[in-house]
Structure formats: structure tokens, C-alpha cells
């Protein structure tokens, strides 16, 4: 009976039986479902999905925009993150401090104020008029700081003996990064990186404040037209989950895999 509900003891050879996994998952799911069903039941909600369905094109369009913004920011923020991580390790001191100031500034201030600052101050100054470009820039700037910390931790996690060994065989600094540090740091950094990408996708919803027609903004619009507020936001939640859940699951899998490799 026990093994239906409890995981095997730590160190025991047996894996969790698939049936027990399924049972546990179903129970957890049912409990959550019951709580929400009860809450909605108490609300005596008169669902009104029909007007929302009429505006489905807006949701689909917003979803697409969110995906595009996320992909663009994901690429740009990774580049920014790696560059700032390297700058943070530079022997040129002003460059090193620039990277530190950047990281502390971004991590210490709300994304919302960064978006407004970029939109009203930085973008006009450098003559960027397209709000989508500003949005992607801000988001990349923001996520880049976190990614640079992840990359920095990954690089610093590489043992001194590895770098010594690279020097001993005569690699240059650039070659050491390319052949020794990055391949190992990348593997170490993948799980936290994937987590950061999940945050980035969700954070893109804040770009609605500068009127980007992304998923969250369009959901807001439909809700104010149709008054089906709860319906719209439920749909919004499900939409983001569709994007983030695969990444989370992939992260789990990666963590599981690296655990056995070392």
C-alpha cells in the first residue's frame, strides 16, 4: 500500500513505479481542480465566452507578437549577457566596472521603470522610433543582466585546474574560452538559463505599457471591449503556460541529465 503513495527511500535502488507516479499526479491535479472549481462555484460566475471567441483573431495575433518579441529578446539578451559577463572579467578596469554597474542597476530597478525610461528617454535620444524595437531592446537589456550573472557563475564554476591545464598545453586566452571554458560553462548554465527564458517570456507582458500589441495588451483590450475580463485573463494565463511549460519541462530534463553525468 505504502509504495502507492510514497517515494522509495533515499538511496534505494528502485525507481518510483509509473503507476504510483500517475496516481500521485492525478490526485494532486484533482485537489487543485477541486479548489478552483469550488472558488468559481462560489463566485456564481456567468461565463461569457462567446464575445471572446469573436475576438479570437486579436488573441492569435498577440500570441504571435509575444512569440516573436520573446525569440528576438532571447537571442539579443543572450548576446548581451555573454558580452557583459566577459566585460566583467576583463582586465580593463573601466570595462569591468561598467559591467558591474549595469548588472546592479538592472537588477535593482523594476522592469516597468526601465521600459518607461527606455521609451521616453533612451529611444528618442538614439532615434529609435519603432516601439517594437524599443520593446525588444529594453527586454534584452533587462534579461541580459541576469543572463550575464548566470554566464559569469558558469565561467567561475570552471575549476582553476582546467584553466591551468589549458595554459600548460599552450592555448591562448581566446582558445581557452572557446575550447575549455564555454563548452563546460554552457552545460552548467543551461538549467538557470532556461529558467531565465521562462521569466523573459512572462516579463514581455509588461511591454503592454508602451502599447505593443502583444498577448497581454490584446487580452486587456478584448476584456475592456467585451467585459469578459476573467475569460480573457484565463486565456492569457493558458497562453503563457503553453509557451513556458515546454521550457520548464526541458529544464527539468536537463537538470536530471546533468545530475547523472558528473
Amino acid at each position, binding site marked *: 500500500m505504502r509504495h502507492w503513495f510514497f517515494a522509495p527511500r533515499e538511496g534505494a535502488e528502485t525507481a518510483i513505479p509509473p503507476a504510483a507516479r500517475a496516481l500521485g499526479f492525478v490526485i494532486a491535479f484533482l485537489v487543485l481542480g477541486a479548489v478552483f472549481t469550488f472558488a468559481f462555484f462560489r463566485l456564481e460566475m456567468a461565463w461569457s465566452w462567446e464575445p471572446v471567441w469573436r475576438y479570437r483573431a486579436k488573441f492569435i495575433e498577440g500570441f504571435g507578437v509575444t512569440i516573436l518579441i520573446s525569440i528576438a529578446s532571447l537571442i539579443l539578451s543572450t548576446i548581451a549577457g555573454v558580452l557583459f559577463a566577459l566585460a566583467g572579467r576583463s582586465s580593463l578596469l573601466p570595462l569591468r566596472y561598467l559591467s558591474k554597474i549595469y548588472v546592479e542597476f538592472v537588477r535593482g530597478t523594476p522592469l516597468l521603470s526601465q521600459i518607461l525610461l527606455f521609451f521616453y528617454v533612451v529611444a528618442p535620444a538614439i532615434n529609435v522610433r519603432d516601439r517594437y524595437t524599443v520593446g525588444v531592446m529594453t527586454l534584452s537589456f533587462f534579461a541580459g543582466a541576469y543572463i550575464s550573472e548566470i554566464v559569469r557563475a558558469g565561467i567561475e564554476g570552471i575549476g582553476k585546474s582546467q584553466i*591551468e*591545464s589549458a*595554459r*600548460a*598545453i*599552450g592555448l591562448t586566452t581566446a582558445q581557452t574560452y572557446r*575550447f575549455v571554458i564555454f*563548452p563546460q560553462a554552457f552545460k552548467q548554465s543551461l538549467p538557470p538559463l532556461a529558467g531565465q527564458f521562462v521569466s523573459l517570456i512572462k516579463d514581455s507582458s509588461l511591454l503592454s505599457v508602451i502599447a505593443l500589441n502583444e498577448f497581454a495588451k490584446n487580452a486587456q483590450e478584448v476584456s475592456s471591449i467585451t467585459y469578459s475580463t476573467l475569460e480573457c485573463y484565463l486565456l492569457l494565463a493558458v497562453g503563457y503556460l503553453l509557451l513556458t511549460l515546454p521550457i520548464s519541462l526541458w529544464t527539468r530534463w536537463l537538470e536530471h541529465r546533468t545530475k547523472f553525468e558528473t
Partner: protein
Amino acid sequence: MDLSITNLSKSFGTQTVLRRISLVAERAQGLVLIGPSGGGKSTLLRVLAGLEYPDRGSGPITFASKPLDFANEDALRAHRRTVGTVFQAFNLFPHLTALANVTLPLIHVHGHAPKVAERLALEALNRFHLAEHAHKRPAELSGGQRQRVAIARAIAIKPRLLFFDEPTSALDPEMTAEVLEVIEELKEEGRDFVLVTHQMGFARRVADRVALLSGGTIAEYGPPGQVIDDPQSEVAKAFLARVLKY
């Protein structure tokens, strides 16, 4: 090797590890460094391998009458490229297979074509009976096998000089024997090497010259028969009495 060291000092912060060491080894094939832990053996080896910088005010270090230019990073790298270094902790690259560990310097430092590099690497691995392990990663190899891969990596580049920094200190006796055999083989084929070790019997066997370092200075220097069997200084006598007791 023809090696000459003059007034070499090295400190880390306030701690002085080497104090004005001078040493001349002419036509010596095997130079073995022994002595108590913290005596400066490994630091001396690492300076010679071009991995640590001597303190300012140190005299020149010359290999075959050519001084090592520690101020010039490119020259230093050129020096590291012509020598092979083997560490206590193996220091293989864990993300690469044994074969890739050996081919990496061959391709990217010595400019061999990948095909040629692979052939040279397999030759080196074969020599140490590692052919069947060529495609395994370090984590799948035993300590002795890892150290032999590290030695294969060091000799595949045809170095003019090999450095072994306590190559067996992390190994159990059986694996130690495995690795010492390999070093002895290299000695027999006439390769020059500098070795730091705690294995006195082995030191006596392979050394032409033994230097006993203690407290950052050379307490005793000469042929193994003289240094190990007939030490003159008090420090050397005390050290050898301790290590040879068991």
C-alpha cells in the same frame, strides 16, 4: 637538458615560497625534486614550466643557454608549447573524450590537420595501452588511465622536455605502478624530464640529479646516490630519515 637557474625567488603575497634558488643541471636527463610538503618543489616546477612568474629581482632561468622571458606572455606561451606538463590531479578536460583531449593541442596549438592529429594521438594512446578507451570521457576512466591519457597528451606534441608534478600522489599503489612504469619507459627512450615526487625509490631509479627543497631553498643537490643515500645537511637527513622509515 641543460638548465640553469640563478637567484630565483617566488612569493605569493607575503608568503615566500622560493628563496634565491640557484641550480645548474648540465646534460642531465632526469631532474627529480624531492622534499617536505610546502618546501617549494611544485612551485619550482611550475616556474620552469612557464606557469608561474618569478619575483622581480630574480636572476635568469635558461634552457640550453636560452633565457626564458617571463615579461613576454607570447614568449612564455611559446615555451609552454614546447614542453609537456602532467599534473597531480590529471587535469584532463572532462567534456572531451580521451582522444579529443590529446588532439586538442595537436590541432589548435601545433597546427596539425585533424586527420594527422588523430593518427598521432592514437599512436600516443596505443603506446600506453589506451586504444580501447580512446572514445571514453575522463569520468569513465580509472585514475591510472586518466593519468596515462594526460601523459599521452603531453608526449603527443613531441615536447623537448616533460614536467611531472606529483603525477602519482592522487593514485592508489597499483595505479601508481602503472604510471611510474610509463615514466620509466620515457626515461629509457632518452626523454628529458623534471619530476616532483614523494616516491624515494622511484626518484633514485630515474634521476640523474636530485634536488631536495626545504623551506624554499635547496638543501641538497647532486646525483641520487649522494642526495638520498648520503645526505650532508641536517634538514635533508631529518627529511630522509622520516620518509625512508616506513
